[in-house]
């Protein structure tokens, strides 16, 4: 299946199907352990929340060897029309070894799956489309109304997920992706990725019409891609508190620098694409929140701050010649003394971190270095900032970390002129 042939394949499998109200997409890849519970939660949610609506459930499988599509077929039963697809042609090969490099979500060809769901939603004239990850154990039937209700009622074009997480979990999102994207596009979305998303039929069509599907940003960071395009294009957005996100064991990647390069690279990539948008957005506005309220959870595991500081210090020792190319002299003069402080007193101030991130964005824009090297060389600095956040807040309440993130967001916004001035003349 490719996105171009998706609708034809739906018609081949379900000849009587003409029009549906809701398209439910479930991308899978070796998710035998979770796909049944996810499918049952989805169908139960559809039956309970939208009893009068017609719905189509689509499965785009990236080449599972564990019978995932058959298990899904059994779980959905005859309650809803089900279209099963095996991806081919458009997506990358479904090799286990390649997964961490292909997608931060762990599903190869995930961008092609989304594209196919959107193509079918457009052809079927669906009012809404919802995509649920099959590898998430904690999907409940409430996810469906939370992700779809705002779209069906015309209150939002895009519903992004927000999960309840321990205060330091998702630290790259909290210390870079979220505050930077918020400062750029002026929308207070938490930029949590994976799990589930809701889209209006209009937004699905807009995604299809944009020439943004080719390249690393869509292939490796489709989750950030969806959110960034929606906010940059000025769509009405909404956030759904979905509770916990518990992933199937073995999902995702352990390679921090690879994950960082993909996530941050996607943000920087869209900074070039949407320069005329973010240059003119000077304040951030909050978005409606439905579902479970967002608040940080207590820690599940102890954080090894010492190891993070060690990583930062090694970066300072060995990567200094590379940082000298990327960072401005003022930023570098702020970072150098951090290598001399005792571990307990180690602090990476928020303004210095913001200036560092902006310098990296500028260096990415100016192409002063091979982009993969540039992004990966940010890893030790990110570890330093994370260690500093933990040291600042670990003796306080979980809300203290949240306040610190909010302060960081304000600093990103306050220092945005620093970025704009240099970006224009780069």
């Amino acid at each position, binding site marked *: 299946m490719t996105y171009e042939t998706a609708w034809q394949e739906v018609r081949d499998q379900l000849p009587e199907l003409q029009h549906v109200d809701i398209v439910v997409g479930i991308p899978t890849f070796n998710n035998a352990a979770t796909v049944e519970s996810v499918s049952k939660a989805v169908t139960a949610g559809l039956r309970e929340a939208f009893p009068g609506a017609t719905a189509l459930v689509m499965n785009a499988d990236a080449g599972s060897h564990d019978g995932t599509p058959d298990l899904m077929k059994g779980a959905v039963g005859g309650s809803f029309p089900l279209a099963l697809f095996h991806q081919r042609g458009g997506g990358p090969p479904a090799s286990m070894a390649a997964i961490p490099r292909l997608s931060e979500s762990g599903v190869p060809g995930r961008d092609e799956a989304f594209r196919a769901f959107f193509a079918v939603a457009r052809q079927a004239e669906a009012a809404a489309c919802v995509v649920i990850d099959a590898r998430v154990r904690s999907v409940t039937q409430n996810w469906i109304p939370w992700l779809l209700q705002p779209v069906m009622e015309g209150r939002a074009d895009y519903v992004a997920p927000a999960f309840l997480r321990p205060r330091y979990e998702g630290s790259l999102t909290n210390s870079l992706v979220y505050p930077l994207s918020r400062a750029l596009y002026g929308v207070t979305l938490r930029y949590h990725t994976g799990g589930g998303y809701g889209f209006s039929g209009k937004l699905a069509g807009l995604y299809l019409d944009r020439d943004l599907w080719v390249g690393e940003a869509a292939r490796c960071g489709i989750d950030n891609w969806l959110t960034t395009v929606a906010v940059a294009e000025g769509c009405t957005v909404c956030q759904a508190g979905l509770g916990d996100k518990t992933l199937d064991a073995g999902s*995702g990647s*352990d390679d*921090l620098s690879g*994950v960082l390069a993909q996530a941050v690279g996607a943000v920087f990539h869209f900074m070039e694409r949407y320069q005329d948008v973010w240059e003119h957005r000077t304040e951030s506005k909050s978005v409606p929140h439905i579902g479970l309220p967002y608040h940080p959870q207590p820690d599940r595991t102890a954080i090894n701050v010492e190891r993070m500081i060690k*990583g930062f210090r090694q970066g300072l020792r*060995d990567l200094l010649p590379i940082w000298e190319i990327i960072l401005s002299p003022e930023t570098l003069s702020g970072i150098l003394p951090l290598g001399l402080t005792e571990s307990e007193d180690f602090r990476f101030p928020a303004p210095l971190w913001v200036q560092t991130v902006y310098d990296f964005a500028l260096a990415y824009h100016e192409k002063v270095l091979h982009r*993969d*090297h540039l992004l*990966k060389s940010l890893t030790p600095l990110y570890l330093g900032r994370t260690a500093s956040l933990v040291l600042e807040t670990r003796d306080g309440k979980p809300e203290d970390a949240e306040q610190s993130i909010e302060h960081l967001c304000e600093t990103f916004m306050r220092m945005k002129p620093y970025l704009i001035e240099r970006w224009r003349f780069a």
Partner: protein
Amino acid sequence: MKEMWQEAMVEAFRETSKRLALFLPKLLALITFLALGAAAGWLVKFLLMRVLAALRFDSLCERVGLTPALARAGFAQPASHAVGRLSFWVVFLLFAFMGIDALDLPTTANLVSVMIGFLPHILAAALLLLFGVLLANFMAEAALIAAVNAQIQEARLIANLIRWGILLFTAAMVLTQLGIAKEIVIAAFSITFGGIVLALAIALGLGGRHIAREGLERRLRKKKSEADELTHI
């Protein structure tokens, strides 16, 4: 006696005058070729730099990372300047060889044809050298960043080993391409490279087998390392 002396003097003068008369036009030809070479070289350089500027060659080199790599390799000028200077010297040297050939000296006979015959080897060697230096810098930088992110303390040592390994390999290929002491270069390279690999194998086998075993176990059995305590996304 006096007549013989006069005759010898006149003969020597005549002979020298004749040789000078024959050599001076050749010298003049050499000087003309050198002047023409300088002018033609400057013209080629000027035109080439204008064309490269119109094609935004420097921006292209920036974009593909060639300029920063050249800067790190010691070439501080923009790439178009380097190409311009190279073109000047190629043209100038061609004219200079023609001038030397015009002198018609026994030792420099057929210099131009020899040099032109050797030119493809020189160009191939220059390209190999450029590619080798760029590759060495790129791979060393990638290895350094990867090793630092993995918190391997010997990150710089690893990066330097990779850089000099590739440079050594490049040097051997360049010398082979130029045909300079081919057999010696191949033998020296084989001995050095084989020696390094053997030394590393022995060092790992004798001194680091436990570390290697632990590393392989950790990798193949997918044990969670202590770095995996946080999810970052």
